[in-house]
C-alpha cells in the first residue's frame, strides 16, 4: 500500500487574505510541497498537467518531475493526470522513458482524458472523441515501450514505419501506468484489458459511483487473465484538511471550502463531508475515514490525498503535511496488522507452531 499526495497546481486567491500567489510562487511552492512529502515519508508525489489558467501545473509533467528526481531520494514521482488525449503518444513514450532513467525508475504515470473542452482544440483535438483518443493513443504508447520496431497506423496521428521510441525504458521495463476515470466504464475496461492500475479520484463524488467503477475494473481484470479480482491494482483519491481537533479543522478550512473552485458556494462543508470522501478533522478522524474506503473499494494499492488547493498558503500546506505524516503512519500500522493477521490465522489452524514456539 502506497500513500502520497497529488496536486492540480491551482493558482487560487486565499479567501482569508485576498492574496493570490504569482505563478512563480505557486511553482516553487509545489516543489517545496513535494520535498516535504518525501521528508514526512510519503511514498508518492503526483502532479497534474495543465495548459490554462488558473493552473500552474506543468504542461509536460516530466519537466517538474525531473527536477524533483534530482532533489529527492526515495519518493516515487507520478502524475494526476497525464493527458492521453491531447498529447502525442510518441512524446509521452519518450519524455516519460527519459524521466524513468533520470529518476532511476522511481516514477510511474496516471493517464486521464482531461475534462476541459477548450483544451482539446488547442492541440487540434475534439473533446467528443475523448474516449477513442484515449484508446488509440494508449494502444500506441503501450507498443512504443515494448517494441523496438513499430509500424503503426491510426486515426489520430501520422503513421509510423519502423519507428523506435528512445530512450528505451529503463532495464526494458515500461513505466507502470494507471488509468484514471470517474465515470467512464471504457477506461476501467481499458485498465483491466492491459492489466494496468485503475485510479478513481472520487473526491468529488459519492461512494456508489466509485464502487461500481472499481467492481467493473476488478471483474474485468480477472476476465482478461491478469490475476484475481481482489488483486487488481486500485488507487483512490482523497481530500483532507487536518488540525489537532475537529473543531479547529472545520473552523480553519471553512472559508477555503466555501470559496473552493469546484464545489464552493454550493453544499455546506458538513453536507459535502457526508456525501463525499472529504475529511476535515483530526488525524484520527482521517485515519478512520480512509480505512472506511476499503468497505466499498476492497483492499487497494495506492491512496493519494489532495492537500494544497483552494488558495491554502504554503505554510498551511506544510503544516497539513506534518499531520498527514501522522495519519499515514497510523494507516501503515493498520496495513501491517492486516497483512499479519491472515497469516497467523492460517498458521494457527494448520499447525501447532505458535503454541509450541
Amino acid at each position, binding site marked *: 500500500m502506497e500513500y502520497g499526495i497529488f496536486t492540480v497546481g491551482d493558482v487560487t486567491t486565499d479567501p482569508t487574505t485576498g492574496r493570490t500567489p504569482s505563478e512563480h510562487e505557486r511553482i516553487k511552492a509545489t516543489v517545496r510541497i513535494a520535498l516535504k512529502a518525501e521528508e514526512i515519508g510519503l511514498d508518492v508525489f503526483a502532479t497534474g498537467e495543465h495548459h490554462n489558467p488558473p493552473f500552474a501545473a506543468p504542461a509536460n509533467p516530466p519537466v517538474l518531475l525531473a527536477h524533483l528526481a534530482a532533489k529527492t531520494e526515495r519518493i516515487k514521482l507520478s502524475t494526476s493526470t497525464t493527458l492521453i488525449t491531447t498529447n502525442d503518444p510518441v512524446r509521452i513514450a519518450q519524455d516519460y522513458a527519459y524521466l524513468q532513467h533520470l529518476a532511476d525508475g522511481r516514477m510511474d504515470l496516471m493517464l486521464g482524458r482531461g475534462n476541459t473542452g477548450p483544451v482539446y482544440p488547442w492541440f487540434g483535438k475534439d473533446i467528443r472523441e475523448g*474516449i*477513442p483518443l484515449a*484508446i*488509440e493513443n494508449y*494502444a500506441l504508447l503501450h507498443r512504443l515501450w515494448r517494441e523496438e520496431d513499430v509500424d503503426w497506423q*491510426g*486515426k489520430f496521428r501520422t503513421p509510423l514505419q519502423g519507428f523506435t521510441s528512445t530512450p528505451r525504458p529503463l532495464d526494458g521495463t515500461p513505466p507502470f501506468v494507471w488509468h484514471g476515470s470517474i*465515470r*467512464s*466504464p*471504457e477506461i476501467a*475496461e*481499458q485498465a483491466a*484489458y492491459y492489466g494496468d492500475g485503475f485510479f478513481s479520484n472520487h473526491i*468529488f*463524488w*459519492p461512494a456508489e*459511483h466509485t464502487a*461500481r467503477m472499481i467492481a*467493473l475494473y476488478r471483474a474485468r481484470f480477472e476476465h482478461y487473465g491478469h490475476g484475481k479480482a481482489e488483486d487488481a491494482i486500485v488507487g483512490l483519491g482523497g481530500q483532507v484538511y487536518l488540525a489537532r481537533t475537529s473543531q479547529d479543522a472545520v473552523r480553519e478550512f471553512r472559508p477555503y471550502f466555501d470559496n473552493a473552485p*469546484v*464545489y*464552493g*458556494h*454550493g*453544499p455546506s462543508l458538513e*453536507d*459535502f463531508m457526508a*456525501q463525499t470522501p472529504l475529511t476535515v478533522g483530526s488525524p484520527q478522524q482521517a485515519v478512520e475515514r480512509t480505512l472506511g474506503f476499503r468497505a466499498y473499494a476492497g483492499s487497494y494499492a495506492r491512496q493519494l490525498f489532495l492537500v494544497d488547493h483552494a488558495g491554502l498558503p504554503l505554510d498551511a500546506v506544510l503544516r497539513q503535511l506534518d499531520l498527514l505524516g501522522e495519519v499515514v503512519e497510523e494507516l501503515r500500522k493498520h496495513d501491517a496488522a492486516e497483512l499479519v493477521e491472515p497469516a497467523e490465522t492460517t498458521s494457527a489452524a494448520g499447525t501447532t507452531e505458535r503454541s509450541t514456539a
Partner: protein
Amino acid sequence: MTATIAVVTAGLSDPSSTRLLADQLGKAAVEALGQRGVDATLEVVELRPLAHALTDQLLTGFATGDLAAAEETLARADAVIAVTPVFSASYSGLFKTFFDVLEPGALDGTPVLVAATAGTARHSLVLEHALRPLFSHLHAVVVPTGVFAASEDWGGAAGTSQSAPASGLARRVTRAAGELAALVAERPRGARPDQFDRDLAAMGDFEELLKG
C-alpha cells in the same frame, strides 16, 4: 398490471394551484388506468423542498438525499405528470433546473403529460412553446393534450356529479389523463438501465474499440 406515475409539481405557495392541478391530473390518470385494468400508484415530487439540493447539484454534479430519491422516482416511473407555474412567460427556473440535472436518458420513451398554471389564459401556449419541446428533447413521449389552468378556470364546475356539467378544465384533465393512460397501457416497461449500465452496454467489446 401495475404502474407508477411520478407527479412533478413546481408550485411555490401552500396551497398551490399548481399542486391542485397536479393532484387533479394524478387522480384522473389513476382512474383512467383503472378503467384499463392497470393498478396505478402516484408518487408526488414537490420541487420546493428540493430547491437547495438542486442548486447544490448544479454546482457539484451529483444529487443527494431526497433529491436523489426524486430523480430515481422519475427514472423508474411508467409515466410522468409535470406541472409548472408560468414565470416570466415560461416554466419556472426551479422546474427547468430539475429536468436539467436529471441523468441523460432518464425519461427515454416515458409518457409525459404536461401542464401549467398562470394568472391569465394569455400564457396558455407555454405548453406548446416551452414544455413540449423540453420533453421532446428528453426523448419523452408527450401526450397530445396539455392542460393549462388560469385563475378563471378554477371557478368552473368540477363536473364530478351527474347534474353539473364539467368545466373546460375538467374535460381537459379527463382527456389528457385518458391519453396518458392509453400510452402507459400500451407500453409496459421493464427495468430501466441507468447511465452506467447504458454506457456499459454501449461500450461493446474492447477489442472492437481498439480497432477504432
